[in-house]
C-alpha cells in the first residue's frame, strides 16, 4: 500500500493526541492480556499436573503394547522377551534416549486376591521395583510398611481399601489367582509388605504391585511383559517421541506384534477431561476478549466520529478511502500491539512469580479430588510455554484488528463534501 510511512506517522501522532483515552484502552488490553497469559500458564500447569498424575498411575506418557491388549487385557496379548528386547534397543537409540526420562516394563493381569476374610477382583501389576519407584508416585503414598525392593520375592504392595475389605495388615498372607500363559488358573501366595493410599478409590481397592520376576514365575511368562511404559520431561514432547518410536519399530508394528500409543489413546477419559477444561478456558478467554474488543471498538469508533472532518480533509488532500480506513486500522493495531507486548511482559512476570511455589488451592478442597484415576494436586504450578505467548499475541492482535474494522469502514466511507461542510 502507498503512503505506509505517512499513515503510520499520523496513526502514532493520533494515539498520542488522546493520550488518556489511549492509555485507558491500553490498560484494559494490558490487564486482559496478562490475565490471559497467566491463565494459559495456569491451565497448562494444571493439565500437566493431571497428565503427570495419570500417566504415573497408568502406563506412562507413551506405552508400547500388543495391539489387542488395551481391549482384551489378556496375558496372551503380551510382548515376548525378544520383542521387549527390540523395544528396549529402540529406546536406547539416539534422539529417543535423550527424550525418555524413565522406562518401566510391566506385566499387567486381571485376577483375584483372596484371604481368609474373602476375595476381591484385582489388577496385579508385575513391576521392576527400582524402575517403578522412578516411574510411579505410588511408593510415596505408603501408609504402612514399605514399597517393593529389588530383593523382594513373594511380596505385595496393596491399597488401603483392599487391606480393609480382606482384613489384611503388613505381613499378612494373600493369595493371588490369575490365568497363566497356558490358560490355566494359577495361584501365588504373597505377603503384604506395604500399604498405600492413592486417594483414588478404584486404585486403592484393586491395585496390587508384585515383583515382575515373581509374576513371570507365577504366570509362566518369564521375561515377557504386557507393556513398556515411558515418561518424558514434558507432555508436549510426546507426539515427537511417538513418531520416532513408530519409525524405529516400523517392522514389528507392520507385523501386528506391537503398537506405540500415547497417553491420549491409552487414557481417553483423561484426554477428554483436558479437552473439556481447555474448551471451558477458551470460552472464558473468548468472552473476556469480546468485552475488551467492544472497548477497543468504542475507543476507536469515538475517535473516528470525533475526527469526521479530519478524515474528509485527508481525502480532499489525496488520501484514498482505503488509505483513510487503513489509518484507523493501523491506529487500532498499534494500540493493540503495544498493549499486547506489555501484557505479555506482565503476564510472564506474574507466571514467573508463582512458578517457584505455585498456587495452593488446598483451602478450597475439603477432600482429595480425583477423576479418571487422576488425583488432583491442590498446588498448581504455572507452566510457561513460548507457543502460548505466540498464541496470545496473535489472539490479541486479531481481537484488536477485528475491533478496528468497523471504525475503519466508517472512516473510509465518509462523504467528503458533507464532512467538510461548515455549520454557519
Amino acid at each position, binding site marked *: 500500500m502507498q*503512503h505506509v510511512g*505517512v499513515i503510520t506517522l*499520523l496513526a502514532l*501522532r*493520533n494515539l*498520542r*493526541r488522546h493520550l488518556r483515552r489511549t492509555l485507558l484502552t491500553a490498560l484494559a488490553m494490558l490487564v486482559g492480556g496478562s490475565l490471559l497469559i497467566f491463565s494459559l500458564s495456569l491451565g497448562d500447569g494444571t493439565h500437566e499436573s493431571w497428565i503427570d498424575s495419570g500417566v504415573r498411575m497408568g502406563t506412562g506418557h507413551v506405552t508400547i503394547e500388543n495391539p489387542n491388549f488395551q481391549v482384551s487385557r489378556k496375558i496372551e496379548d503380551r510382548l515376548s522377551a525378544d520383542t521387549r528386547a527390540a523395544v528396549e534397543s529402540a529406546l536406547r537409540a539416539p534422539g529417543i534416549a535423550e527424550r525418555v526420562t524413565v522406562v518401566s516394563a510391566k506385566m499387567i493381569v486381571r485376577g483375584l486376591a483372596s484371604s481368609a476374610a474373602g476375595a476381591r477382583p484385582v489388577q496385579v501389576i508385575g513391576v521392576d521395583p527400582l524402575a517403578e519407584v522412578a516411574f510411579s508416585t505410588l511408593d510415596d503414598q505408603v501408609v504402612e510398611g514399605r514399597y517393593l525392593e529389588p530383593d523382594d520375592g513373594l511380596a505385595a504392595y496393596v491399597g488401603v481399601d483392599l487391606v480393609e475389605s480382606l482384613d489384611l495388615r503388613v505381613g499378612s498372607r494373600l493369595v493371588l489367582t490369575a490365568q497363566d500363559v497356558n490358560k490355566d488358573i494359577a495361584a501365588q501366595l504373597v505377603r503384604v509388605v506395604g500399604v498405600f493410599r492413592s486417594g483414588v478409590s478404584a486404585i486403592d481397592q484393586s491395585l496390587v504391585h508384585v515383583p515382575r520376576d515373581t509374576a513371570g514365575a507365577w504366570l509362566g511368562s518369564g521375561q515377557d511383559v504386557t507393556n513398556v511404559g515411558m515418561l518424558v520431561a514434558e507432555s508436549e514432547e510426546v507426539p515427537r517421541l511417538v513418531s520416532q518410536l513408530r519409525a524405529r519399530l516400523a517392522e514389528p508394528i507392520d507385523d501386528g506384534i506391537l503398537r506405540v500409543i500415547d497417553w491420549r489413546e491409552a487414557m481417553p477419559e483423561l484426554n477428554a477431561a483436558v479437552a473439556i477444561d481447555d474448551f471451558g478456558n477458551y470460552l472464558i478467554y473468548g468472552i473476556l476478549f469480546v468485552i475488551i474488543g467492544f472497548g477497543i471498538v468504542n475507543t476507536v469508533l469515538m475517535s473516528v466520529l470525533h475526527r469526521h*472532518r*479530519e478524515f474528509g*480533509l*485527508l*481525502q*480532499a*488532500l*489525496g*488520501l*484514498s*478511502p*482505503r*488509505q483513510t480506513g487503513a489509518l484507523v486500522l493501523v491506529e487500532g493495531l498499534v494500540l493493540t500491539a503495544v498493549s499486547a507486548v506489555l501484557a505479555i511482559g506482565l503476564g510472564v512476570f506474574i507466571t514467573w512469580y508463582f512458578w517457584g511455589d505455585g498456587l495452593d488451592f488446598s483451602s478450597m478442597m475439603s477432600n482429595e479430588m480425583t477423576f479418571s484415576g487422576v488425583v488432583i494436586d491442590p498446588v498448581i504450578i504455572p507452566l510457561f510455554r513460548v507457543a502460548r505467548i505466540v498464541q496470545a499475541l496473535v489472539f490479541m492482535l486479531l481481537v484488536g484488528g477485528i475491533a478496528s474494522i468497523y471504525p475503519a469502514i466508517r472512516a473510509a466511507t465518509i*462523504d*467528503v*463534501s458533507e464532512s*467538510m*461542510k*461548515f455549520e*454557519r
Partner: protein
Amino acid sequence: MTESTPPAVRTEAVWKTFSQEAEEVHAVRDVSLVIAPGEFTALAGPSGSGKTTLLNLMGGLTRSTRGRVLVAGRDLTEMSNRELAQLRLEEIGFVFQAYNLLPVLTAVENAEFPMLLQGVPLEDRRRRVRELFEKTGLTGLEERRPGKLSGGQQQRVAVIRAVASKPAMVLADEPTANLDSSASEALLNVMYDLNQELGVTFVFATHDVRVMERSRRLVRMVDGAIDSDETRR
C-alpha cells in the same frame, strides 16, 4: 490558453441533485463553465446558491448527477474514488473555511503534507515550503501546531499547502469567512500575489465582497445556475 493546454477546469451541463424528504433539490443546474489556467475567479452568490456544491464538483469531492467535469483535461465522472483521490493529490489544492489543518502535524508538516504523499524528497519539500513561509510572513512559526496559530495564520498555512505542490488549480471555499478584515486582506494579498507570481489558478466560492472585488472574473450563481459571468480588467 493554447490548444494543447486544457482548461484548469471545465464543466459541461453539470447537474447535482439531492433527495430531501422525497423531494428532489437541484443544488447545481445545468452549469457549463470553463476556467483557464492562471485565472483568479470568484463564484459568488447567497447561501444555498450552489457555489460550494459547484466547487466540490470541480474538486471531485462529490459526483455530478448529470453532465461532465474535466480537470486539466481529465474527466472526473469516469474516475473511481481512488483515481479521484490521486487526481486531487496531483492537480488540486484546497482551502476550506476552517479546520483546514491536521492538528497532529506542525505548520510546516501540514504545509508539505500533499508533497509528502507525492513522494517529494524532504529537502525539496522543506525548501519550497520555507520560501512560501517567508513570502507569506509565517517564518518562525514552522514548528507550531495548528492550535498555537491564529485563524489568519492557519489559513495562510492552508494556502501554502494548497499551492506548494504546484497543482493545476486551488479551490477555496469561503477562505476569509472566519477572519477579521485585516487578516482577510492579508490572506487575499497572499493568494493574489501567488496567482500573479506563480500563475496558480484560484477559484473561490464566496460571498465576501472583498474577494469579489479582488477577483478578475466574477461568476454569480442563483438557485444553482449561473446568473452572470463577468470578466474584469
